[in-house]
């Protein structure tokens, strides 16, 4: 059983991400966000469950689909929204957009839009964490597609070899863009087996349950803080919206809504809400609406980057 505090913390975090992305999607047709948005709606619980057991000083790394990770780890909402608007106050000063985000203070590594690149990068953060010897850990989020890149195998092998404190989190939503896993792997269920073969203990959570994700991460992270090596967690989830863009795309040509329905019925926001006192949910909702609205105002009111920013930061 999870404590009331844990439940309300998870609820707040999942809903906060959901609403942030829904509001961004609503704004999108206005062309104020001129950035390819890859929404996590429907799969926020992976970031939330894992980040719930991380601390200050731990790091997370992710892909172009990283709004959830960013917010769950404590990255600022204002910085994220302003980045999507291309403003000077954005978390990358307007230079990165939705696909490239960062919050160094919150332990959010820069996210990368070349599939898989975050995996070795995060492994490097884990190498540094181990060298520092302060019990810090790294969690890296990537899709099922990313697990097909060579650098995935090479990073797991090295992390296992050097017993690095890194949690590999495969967010398996069954698709890479419009291509289902079965067209990309002879053994679609075999991601954990690959990790095991490389010396990385692996578990699969096939129903997207936030408590299972959180508890799995808690166990792995505790072991890593005590000096154990890497762990892989495969969390099966479902992406509710387009691969890129603000809309739904059921019936467009690669999937039908019936496939999504069981996942929507098992929506983690609703599930957590059902475990809470009604009044409590309303208070949290109101706070979140205010926070998201404030982030939109912040983004709208922020200045665009000064022209000379084009040439700043080419070299450190």
């Amino acid at each position: 059983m999870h404590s009331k505090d844990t439940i309300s913390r998870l609820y707040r975090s999942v809903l906060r991400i959901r609403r942030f992305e829904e509001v961004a999607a609503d704004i999108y047709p206005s062309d104020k966000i001129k950035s390819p948005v890859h929404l996590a709606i429907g799969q926020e619980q992976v970031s939330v469950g894992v980040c719930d057991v991380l601390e200050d000083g731990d790091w997370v790394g992710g892909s172009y689909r990283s709004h959830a990770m960013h917010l769950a780890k404590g990255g600022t909402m204002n910085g994220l929204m302003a980045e999507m608007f291309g403003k000077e106050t954005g978390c990358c000063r307007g230079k990165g957009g939705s696909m490239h985000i960062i919050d160094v203070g919150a332990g959010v590594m820069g996210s990368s839009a070349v599939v898989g690149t975050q995996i070795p990068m995060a492994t490097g953060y884990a190498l540094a964490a181990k060298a520092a010897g302060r019990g810090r850990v790294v969690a890296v989020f990537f899709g099922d597609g990313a697990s097909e890149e060579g650098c995935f195998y090479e990073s797991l092998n090295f992390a296992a070899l050097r017993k690095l404190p890194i949690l590999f989190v495969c967010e398996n939503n069954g698709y890479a863009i419009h291509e289902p896993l079965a067209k990309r792997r002879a053994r679609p269920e075999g991601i954990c087996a690959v990790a095991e073969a490389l010396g990385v203990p692996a578990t699969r959570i096939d129903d997207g349950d936030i408590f299972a994700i959180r508890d799995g991460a808690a166990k792995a992270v505790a072991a890593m803080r005590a000096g154990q090596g890497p762990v892989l967690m495969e969390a099966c989830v479902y992406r509710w919206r387009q691969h890129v863009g603000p809309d739904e795309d059921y019936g467009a040509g690669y999937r039908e809504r019936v496939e999504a329905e069981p996942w929507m019925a098992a929506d983690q926001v609703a599930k957590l809400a059902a475990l809470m006192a009604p009044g409590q949910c309303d208070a949290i909702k109101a706070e979140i609406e205010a926070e998201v609205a404030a982030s939109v105002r912040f983004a709208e009111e922020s200045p665009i980057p000064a022209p000379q920013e084009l040439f700043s930061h080419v070299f450190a």
Partner: protein
Amino acid sequence: MSSPDRILRYVDALREAFDQEMARDPSVFVFGLDVDDYLGIQGSTKGLVDKYGPERVFTTPLSEDAMTGIAIGAAMAGMRPVHVHIRMDFMLLCMNQLINIAAKAHYMWGGQVKVPLVVRSMIGKSWGQGAQHSQGLHSLFMHIPGLKVVAPSNAYDAKGCMLAAIRDDNPVIVMEHRLLYATEAPVPVEPYAVEFGKARICRKGDDVTVVGISNMVMEAIRAAELLAEVGVEAEVIDPVSLVPLDMATIIASANRTKRLLIVDNGWTMCGASAEIAAQAAEACEGLRIRRMGFAPTTCPTAPNLEAGFYPNPGTIASAAWSLARPGTAAWAPSPERTKLAYQVQFKGPF
């Protein structure tokens, strides 16, 4: 049957090249992430899987490095693979295979194997493509002996270059541009090859020679129209293929105009523009040269910053003016008039 006046979009012209070559030669196959999905790489591979089946048209795991090596092996073994990448940036995962194997195989193994491989990729621009979805990396490939590099700027060349690339016995890198996909041109129905190493003079003029690469041909043509309104006649040249490179056409023009402006869709440092400028300088006496390309920085996503990253018809026209009219006051066309139809139409997310 010939119908020279049929108009096709760039993306449909590409598709027709694949269709005709696959029908002609059973060793041709097209593969890469998403080539068989319902959108078919913006339409350029749409329907091919229905016609030629999943053995010849297939998606791949996200494994660009190995898939490139696999394509090279299949090519050496007698097939004609076309490997598709939705962004040129992702070809950076293929560099070892392309440069260490594909480019060198024929030479280092004494001419006994060939690598008839086509690698096509799209360059992105605008709508927050940013650092990792916008790079024009053709100069990296131009640097390496053994690789051919082509950059069709219009629908006619798109079909003809693709057909020539598929029939070529060497690895050919075909660089496409996302914003060109909707542009239209007359495209013959029958199969035809556009010969590599033959530049196209897109517009005649005596005052200044402007070489454009990839979509910069379109921008340069617009600049030339604006220059003509103020009495400067620019000759616009499209090299079409960068390796082999038809310097003779560029040099002949530059010798006449004595002014050469090269506009690349890539960085100027060690870029295609540097190579063209160097060869022209070696060949022409008294030539004034200017180069334009990506700003020497990483592509940002904020639209106002991104605007400063690329040459555009306004900046090209200004630069050409100052080359053609040295000692006169600087001139720039009104920004309203420098907009290109394809840019006005384009709206994200891709």
